[in-house]
């Protein structure tokens, strides 16, 4: 299983791969992934690679990712080439009209890629008082809701209970459900 997680520095994408890693390790599987630290974290494009299984390299090669988790729609589109034929993407969408672009549709059709858009900012504004740092768990919840990514919502919740600071656990779990609910609709 190979994941690519993309977004903008400061959005908290690293926590998502920590959750996935925690789940895999508790199942007794091997994990390896790659993160971005340093200058790019200052508001620039960031990408996290994550692989579960017998791999040596932390990097996902183009056309081999099973799942793309995108915290920003522009970063999503820039990184769609990582998805394999039949790959799936959860995308936090803020300007849905971009997905009407014909060339983009051609690409997605040609590679049989399925997109799962979620209006993350709207949801967090409505339910979480605009605390956009919860995007990471919202997207993980959405991934479970869409039935992709090969992890269950219970596993995600358990991992968050183990990893998140105690005072934030409850809020995090609430947001996982929000993400799950948005997809299951």
């Amino acid at each position, binding site marked *: 299983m190979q994941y690519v997680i993309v977004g903008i520095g400061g959005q908290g994408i690293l926590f998502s791969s920590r959750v996935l890693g925690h789940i895999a390790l508790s199942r007794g599987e091997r994990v*390896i992934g790659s993160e971005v630290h*340093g*200058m790019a974290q*200052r508001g*620039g*494009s960031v990408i996290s690679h994550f692989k579960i299984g017998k791999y040596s390299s932390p990097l996902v*090669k183009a056309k081999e990712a099973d799942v793309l988790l995108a915290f920003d729609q522009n970063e999503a*589109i820039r990184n769609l080439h990582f998805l394999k034929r039949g790959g799936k993407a959860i995308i936090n969408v803020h300007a849905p009209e971009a997905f009407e672009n014909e060339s983009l549709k051609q690409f997605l059709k040609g590679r049989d890629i399925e997109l799962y858009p979620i209006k993350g900012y709207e949801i967090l504004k409505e339910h979480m008082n605009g605390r956009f740092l919860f995007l990471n768990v919202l997207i993980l919840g959405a991934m479970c809701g869409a039935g992709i990514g090969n992890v269950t919502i219970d596993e995600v919740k358990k991992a968050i209970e183990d990893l998140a600071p105690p005072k934030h656990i409850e809020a995090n779990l609430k947001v996982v459900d929000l993400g799950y609910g948005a997809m299951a609709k």
Partner: protein
Amino acid sequence: MGKKMILLGNEAIARGIVEAGCEVACAYPGTPSSEILPAVAKWADELETKTVVEWGANEKVAFEMAAAASFAGKRTCAVMKQVGLNVAADPFMSVAHFQLKGGFLLVVADDPGPHSSQTEQDSRFFAMFAKVPCFDPSTAAEAKEMVFDAYDLSERHGIVTMLRPSVRVDHCRQDVELLDVLPIERPASFEKDVKRWVCLPAHVKINHPLLNKKNDAIREEFEKDFSKYNYEVPAEGKASLGIIAGGISFAVVMDLLTSMGRKDVSVLKIGTPYPLPTKLVGDFIAKHDKVLVLEETYPVIETQIIDRSKVLGRLNGWVPRAGELLPEVVEEVILKALGEEVVSSSEEEYLKKALEELKIAPRKPMLCPGCPHRASFFSIKQALPNAIYPSDIGCYTLGVNQKTVDAVIDMGASITQSSGFYLAHKVDGAERPIVATIGDSTFFHMGLPGLASAVYNKHAFVLAILDNSITAMTGGQSHPGVGEKLRKEDEGRRVDLEGAVRGCGVKWIKTVEAYDVRENKDLVKEAWEYAKANKEPAVLIFKHPCMLLRVEQDKIPVKVDQDKCIGCKFCIDFFNCPGLVFDEEKKKAYIDERFCVQCGVCINVCPHGAILGSNGEEA
């Protein structure tokens, strides 16, 4: 089997350092090495070892502290990024000749790409230059294991030993096995011995041949005794191609061959690139018709190969000579070496077209919303728009976005470049305003010598020290101007920044709140007038805590009055905040509340008074 945990490569290296009984660990932060020392402190607290863990003011300081602790018999380490070793090059070259007592591990993190550096230099070359053995890990788990062998080698041969993880190893996350701490009881005992510890030329005449002998002996060991790091993964049947791969490139090659379904390629992994086990490598080459060498970033293994007639590498143009060897790049190189076609899919063209049509480009790094540096740069630019702006290494290099960073070389060079610019104009009898910017940590790192020199030589410029009370770019480490230390209950003392500046002989010094852009604009002008009149540097310290420290501050919600905004983009060009963006269709600026942190500084930015506090504050 010990317990398994998912660790960042740097945390794994740190764990290895503590487990191996290191008692003195020193570093200066720099991506991609920064997480190592804090993790050493964390593991040392957790495992209750005595290890002292300290940030030096710069890499040379850290290296020399670690070196002397080794002279006294302790297991020590110095940790830095690749350009940090340039700063520590002097002691590194020198200490290489010493017959050390305690094991001395030098961890140097390289940044092929580069992702967060001013060069993508290869530290393995530095190891070769200094004649120091080097380990080059392919994964986090291997990096941790190599720490033990590096200490062992260092103590058996009395030589400093380099571990060279590259960024993909430092920042990979992998399941790693945890072990207990090696019990090493070794009280500090420095035995005086001038021949051993004083690097007089006469002693070098003895020590250099000795260093050569150590190199020969270590090369022999790497040939035979290190098969866990240097080994062949054979092809099934006759190999169409041989690949020699080191470091992260080995891991990339192995995953690639699996996904390509190639069984006709054999791979020789090299984990000890210097001194190269040349016989092992020669035997591998002899078995193949052609051999591809993959390593990052310079041809270190390749140049050491004695007979290169069958070798395809960087020296003869088969492998790109710059940039990271990403899987896509390596795949193409392998196919080319095999003499096979590289097929590109037609779908990619649609995606390229979509990106063009939607005008989507990689997002450039920017200073964080609310960052005090943005306010400081704005004041400087408004005060002296025609000045030359030398700057330095840190988050504030991103002042390029505000057109207030004109020249950057390396740590501390904002000050020395100011001197150089001043002199270049002085010889012509001319004068031009100069405003240098440097961060607080960078000032303590290498700013002080430049400032003392500028005062001594009477150079006129304004030095703006952007004091955010942290080493920010690398993730928030402490430094002498902050005074906090890494281990629990470890006491440090803050060095007064203004006092240090005064001590260098600077007479005009003012410390200001960075957010006060209107007042600061006048002060920058005043500072330059003083510097010009008195032929000496004037120093303004812009103070405000880094946003990463999350210090509580007043929240001032802002809005852009859409009637008053004339769409001039002044705020975009000179303030450049992620929270203040431009609507290209409406030709108006607006607040992007996804990013705005309500610092309120931009209220004073718009020349047309279009940015308002929502409580009615107006510029």
